[in-house]
Every structure is written in structure tokens, then in C-alpha cells.
């Protein structure tokens, strides 16, 4: 087990579950209440670089994965958090990591997750005339998507 994994384990204990996939990849899973604490610890204390965040639509909610790169250790730490449906509310990381600005806007328009505290939640990639409430990256939204394309 790597030093970083040890460090995270002693710091957070049971509050996170760790999977060390190989020596370059570590996956953490945590609850929506602790995610801010976990991510800011990795970003501030361990000196990680925010690489990106990906959102995945699942049955229970939208899974958001924060990919944080520890360049000096050559380790990619991925923090996984489930944002439960149907509210889909998530604290914004903009105040901690300004780099998340664009990616949060992207997840907001593509998956419909509301980031609370985001300074500028406008559209980023989708066209201006895109209908409200249609999220292209949601699974099984094909019916509603059809209507949009046939317009």
C-alpha cells in the first residue's frame, strides 16, 4: 500500500472506502456530506492538481468522480461521490478549486446536477436554443432527445 493511501486511511478512517487499483490509480468512495472535506484535503494538504471531474448517470443518482493528480508521486486519486436523485444537489468546489468552474458548468448542463454556490451557472457547450430540462448525457432520455432533434 502506498504512502498516500496510508495517509488517507489514517486521516479519514471509516468515512471513506479505498481501492488501490495499481500503483498509479487510487479510487476513493465517500458520502456527499464528507466529499468537500476529502477533496479539499487532497487538493490543499497533499498538493494535488485538479485534473477533471466526470459525471455518470446511474439508476440511483448521478455519480461524480473528481480526478486529482498528484504529479510528484505519480498518482491519480479519484474521489467518487453519489449525488442522489431526484434533487441532484451538490456543493460547488469553485471556492476551493477555481479550476472546477468550467467542468461544473458542463456537468450541470449535460446531467442536470445543480452546483450550489457556483458563480456562473450559464450554458457552456450546448446551443442557446437548447430546451430546458433536456440533459443529453442522461441515460434513457432518448425519447425526449428525439423531439429536440426533429424540431
Amino acid at each position, binding site marked *: 500500500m502506498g504512502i498516500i493511501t496510508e495517509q488517507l486511511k489514517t486521516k479519514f478512517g471509516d468515512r471513506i472506502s479505498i481501492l488501490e487499483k495499481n500503483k498509479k490509480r487510487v479510487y476513493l468512495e465517500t458520502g456527499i456530506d464528507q466529499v468537500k472535506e476529502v477533496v479539499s484535503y487532497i487538493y490543499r494538504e497533499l498538493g494535488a492538481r485538479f485534473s477533471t471531474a466526470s459525471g455518470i448517470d446511474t439508476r440511483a443518482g448521478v455519480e461524480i468522480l473528481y480526478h486529482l493528480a498528484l504529479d510528484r508521486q505519480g498518482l491519480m486519486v479519484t474521489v467518487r461521490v453519489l449525488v442522489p436523485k431526484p434533487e441532484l444537489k451538490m456543493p460547488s468546489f469553485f471556492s476551493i478549486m477555481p479550476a472546477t468552474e468550467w467542468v461544473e458548468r458542463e456537468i450541470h448542463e449535460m446531467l442536470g446536477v445543480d452546483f450550489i454556490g457556483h458563480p456562473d451557472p450559464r450554458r457552456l457547450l450546448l446551443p442557446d436554443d*437548447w430546451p430546458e430540462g433536456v440533459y443529453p448525457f442522461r441515460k434513457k432520455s432518448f425519447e425526449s432527445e428525439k423531439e429536440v432533434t426533429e424540431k
Partner: protein
Amino acid sequence: MLNPFKWGLKKSPWVFHLGASACNNCDIEILDCLTPKFDIERFGIVLTGSPRHADVLLVSGIVNRQSIERFKRAYDQVPKPKLVVAIGVCACSADMFRDSYNFVRPVDEIIPVDVYVPGCPPKPEAIIAGIMKALGKIK
């Protein structure tokens, strides 16, 4: 009777490059035509910065929902005779992006296309040949 405007157009066509939602590669190859190895200026072809000055429109990429309005407007600004060359397989048939949610219609259903230059990306030689072929349409 020789029409001096048409004669002049055949000798020195000005082209405008209209990149819709392209992957950049056709666009780079169009720019590449300008550089020393291919040098289309020796045929009198000049790349202009505005559609209002252009005789030939080089279209690359698919047209998406955000760019379609602007795309039509740029086409309307081109003076007659409007010659359109579709560069690359995306502009010719939309290829692998046909199923995308942001894709509207193929280019030739939005504006009339005169010459198709397929390829991903087409070689600069093919692009030059395409422009020349389009000029052949002027009678």
C-alpha cells in the same frame, strides 16, 4: 462574347474558409495549401478574411445547432456566383457524427454544394483540384 467578370473570376478566385463544427484537420489542410509546399497563390487563389469578398466558399465539418444560423448568414453574404466546395467527409456526408444530438442536417441540405472533396482529411492536392473543378462550372 467574353464576359470579363467571369474571365477574371476564373483567373483569380478568392476563397473563404467556413469551418462549421470541424475537427480542425480539413481547416489545417486548407491553410496548408497557402504555404510554400503547395502555394495556391500561384493559381491566383487568395484566402480572404470575409465572406463578402469571396467567390468560392470552402466548407468543412458538420453543422451543429449552435452554428447553423451563423452558417446560413455567412453563405448569404457571399456574392454571386456562389460556388461551394464541401471539404472532407464530414461536410460531404456527416459521416460518424450523423447520430449526434447536436447535429442538424448535412451541409448539402442547408446550402447548395457544387463540388464534394471526400477524404479525412483530403490532401491539399485534392482541395486544389476541387476548387479548380468548381471554377469549371462557370460558363
